[in-house]
């Protein structure tokens, strides 16, 4: 499977995601933000980091960048797109995913391991997980507080477009297990065609027992299937 990782000058999880993809036998290429063409890709990853510094709203400038036009075109043609953390923020800026990522409820950057529950395991991104499976996964963001309007929230729920929700280690989804104030504890969502996934947690950080755990591996294995 061919993958491309978009590299903005302030991306800082680009190497991490590349390592994860290569570990799972993807044929990966890094694509510099000034490129105007994408290599042939089955999967495009928009990685975490601070795209263009994010001194303006996170991802706002990246959402208007040269390369992102190509990502949008590819998405329209059905290419699989994965946005992680800043990548998720950028995808909402482009409109490929609806909703916004507000500042964390506690107004602070949060880096810690949290639990998330697999809500929809019938997608290209999640088929190797079991429904309601609980993962332990790292988050690291300042703006991860997902919000959307009530119409869209209804659609998310009715069309099963919520990928993951924050929960505690027993799977309880409530305010105590919500690290950043996200609406309905949402940690990741799909677009309506389910070829685009945006998520705040970092699956690429959960690929190695020596460092963390391997709870992220099934996401990549799902894509390979």
């Amino acid at each position, binding site marked *: 499977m061919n993958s491309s990782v978009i590299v903005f*000058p*302030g991306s*800082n*999880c680009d*190497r*991490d995601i590349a*390592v994860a993809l290569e570990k799972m036998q993807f044929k990966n290429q890094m694509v510099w933000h*000034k490129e105007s063409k994408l290599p042939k890709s089955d999967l495009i990853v928009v990685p*975490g*980091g*601070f795209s*263009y*510094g*994010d*001194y303006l709203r996170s991802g706002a400038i990246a959402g208007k960048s040269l390369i992102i036009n190509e990502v949008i075109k590819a998405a329209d043609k059905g290419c699989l797109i994965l946005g992680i953390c800043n990548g998720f923020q950028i995808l909402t800026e482009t409109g490929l995913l609806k909703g916004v990522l507000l500042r964390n409820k506690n107004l*602070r*950057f*949060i*880096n*810690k391991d949290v639990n998330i529950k697999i809500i929809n395991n019938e997608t290209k991104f999640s088929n190797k997980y079991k429904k309601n499976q609980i993962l332990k996964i*790292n988050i*690291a963001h*300042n703006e991860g507080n997902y919000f959307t309007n009530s119409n869209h929230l209804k659609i998310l729920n009715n069309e099963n477009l919520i990928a993951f929700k924050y929960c505690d280690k027993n799977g309880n989804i409530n305010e105590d297990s919500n690290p950043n104030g996200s609406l309905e504890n949402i940690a990741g969502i799909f677009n309506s065609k389910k070829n685009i996934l945006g998520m705040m947690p*970092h699956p*690429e*950080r959960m*690929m*190695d027992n*020596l*460092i*963390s755990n391997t709870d992220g591996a099934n996401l990549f294995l799902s894509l390979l299937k």
Partner: protein
Amino acid sequence: MKITNQVVEKHGLNLEEYSNIKKFLKREPNLLELGIFSAMWNEHCSYKSSRRHLKNLPTKGKQVIQGPGENAGVIDIGDDDAIIFKIESHNHPSYIEPYQGAATGVGGILRDVFTMGARPIALLNSIHFGSPEHFKTKSLLNGVVSGIGGYGNCIGIPTVAGETKFNKTYNENILVNAMAVGHAKKDKIFYSKAKGVNKSVVYVGSKTGRDGIHGASMASAEFDENSEEKKPTVQVGDPFTEKLLMEACLELMKDNSIISIQDMGAAGLTSSSVEMASKGDLGIEIHLDKVPCREENMTPYEMMLSESQERMLIILEDGKEKHAKEIFKKWDLDFVIIGKTTDTNKLTLKYNGKIEGEIPLDALASKAPVYDRKWVKKKLIKSKFDFKKLKKIKIEDALIKILSSANHSNKNWITNQYDQMVMCDTAQKSGADSAVIRIHDKEKAIAVAVDSSANYCKAHPLTGGKQIVCENWRNLISVGAKPIAITNCLNFGNPEDPKIMGEFAECLIGIKESCEFLNYPVVSGNVSFYNGTNKKNISPTPVIGGVGLIQKLEKPMDHLFKKKNSDVLLIGKTFGHLEQSVFLEEVHYILDGRPPEINLVNERNNGETVLEIIKKDLVNSVHDVSNGGLIVALAEMSMGSDFGIKIKKPKNLTNLYKYFFGEDQSRYILEVDKNNLERVEKILKNNNIFYDNIGLTQNDYFEIEDELKIDIKKLYKINNQWYNNY
């Protein structure tokens, strides 16, 4: 502008120094030249008070590639790998403007490391605040923590370890020390020494603004009630640009384009150009009209003294200009040839062709003032402390009081604001004795830790200096790393006061003794004097940052109990030293007496034996015993684990408080499986190590026979509430 005595003093120079300047120049300096002298001769850049003492530190060793004197220290960790690291203070700016002060502290130390060719792989910090009740502490804490996080998180280097302390000695002068650690290939290390005449001197990075002018001079004077007015001397950080600069430099470093490179840190363009040229025994000519400026009508004086961040000076090999320029263009950074190296041994500054200033380089560097300041020894005080007169308190209540105090509470509130995982090589995060960072794509890892003991250093600087190196050594051992070398950040008060200078001199003697004995050389560091306001000096606070090597990272060792029914061994002798202890400070509000003695022979033997046991995979968990003594160490091993401990009542020591809260040094706690006990005891006996079997791990409870029994979940909760309630 006429150079009057007042102008001279405003530049932080005394009249004797000024008359020396005139001797060097054989004339009066103009304002630009005076500014340059002031930047190079201030304490921060010249080390004029500390140099005589620093040269006694051991700086060499089999694994030392580069000791002090460069941007950072370099050590050999085998194969073709080198680790480059340094710690630096940013105390004064952080007190005035906590967010930017702390952020640019991180930015500055990162540049020191990647300037030498290393990709930074870890950030650490040591931050000291005033008493939590002081009206400024809360906002300083918030500002500093978010500043450190803001910079490191954005540039994408994990902040993996640190220490945070509160003490009223820092009420008017906080400490913010940042350490960066990088990895480089041994044959790709870059130095600041210029070579060759007529080589292009290139300015890269951000544009120069009016921020930070005289920052280094500010850091070389005490604060007074007008300190707030110094805000404009604090630099503003831009981590995004630093990221670009880092990537561009590392890309250019892949081939042989660079002769030498130096970041523009304290005293900006002045110190970088002077350092490169003087080290190379050359001259340097700079055309200031070519310097990229952020603001209009900047004068040569402002350009030379600006401390705008994220800038570098590079001397390029002939013919590499175009290639280098392309790289910096790719990263959207300024790249301008602003001058050349010369054979004049002078710093020559021109503006539109006209010479604006010219100074012999030796006057700024090798002949800068060095002072042999008066210092007095501190006697070991006899303690007035009498245990019998202490107010009665139950052991349980004393423990809870300590675990819920500002200084001994869990620091998750802070560390959760730092990205600790980016780069995906953090095998052990904050909260352990040391952080462990795997070398990317390799089996080996390094352990890193920072430590300080201001109370001990205040009570007896020599013992304190000795102790702090040992504690740092112990922290690396506890995660299974072989300690290799340290960097130090020496935070002290006003060196013109012989008592303060004595604290400095004696701490350094202590540091030297331990470093020599443990074969633990100092490879880089930084001195920060004048920490104090209105003649009130801070307690002497040397901070030690250590790096150790784990040859093969198979499973990271930490301090949390892993199983029930393991034997718990206490390594090292317990005498019950309560003077200067956390127990007295936090429970009885007494700071009195002597710090605990260090026996370096025991320190080394105990440490080397523990390391041997860890390497043979015979222990489940390891923790060193430090502040708070045995009971706090055991509580730390229980909190956050699923297992507690049942501690046997000690047979010999009649005073339980001394036994449990005493801060005797060189001690470790090992959790050993029944199956391994015999082997571990054999190693301990063979090495003549004193140890005691003090109890067994168990489910759920932290217990001392016939004395106390607390649910470990309750302990955890007690330990985790201070920050959230602050």
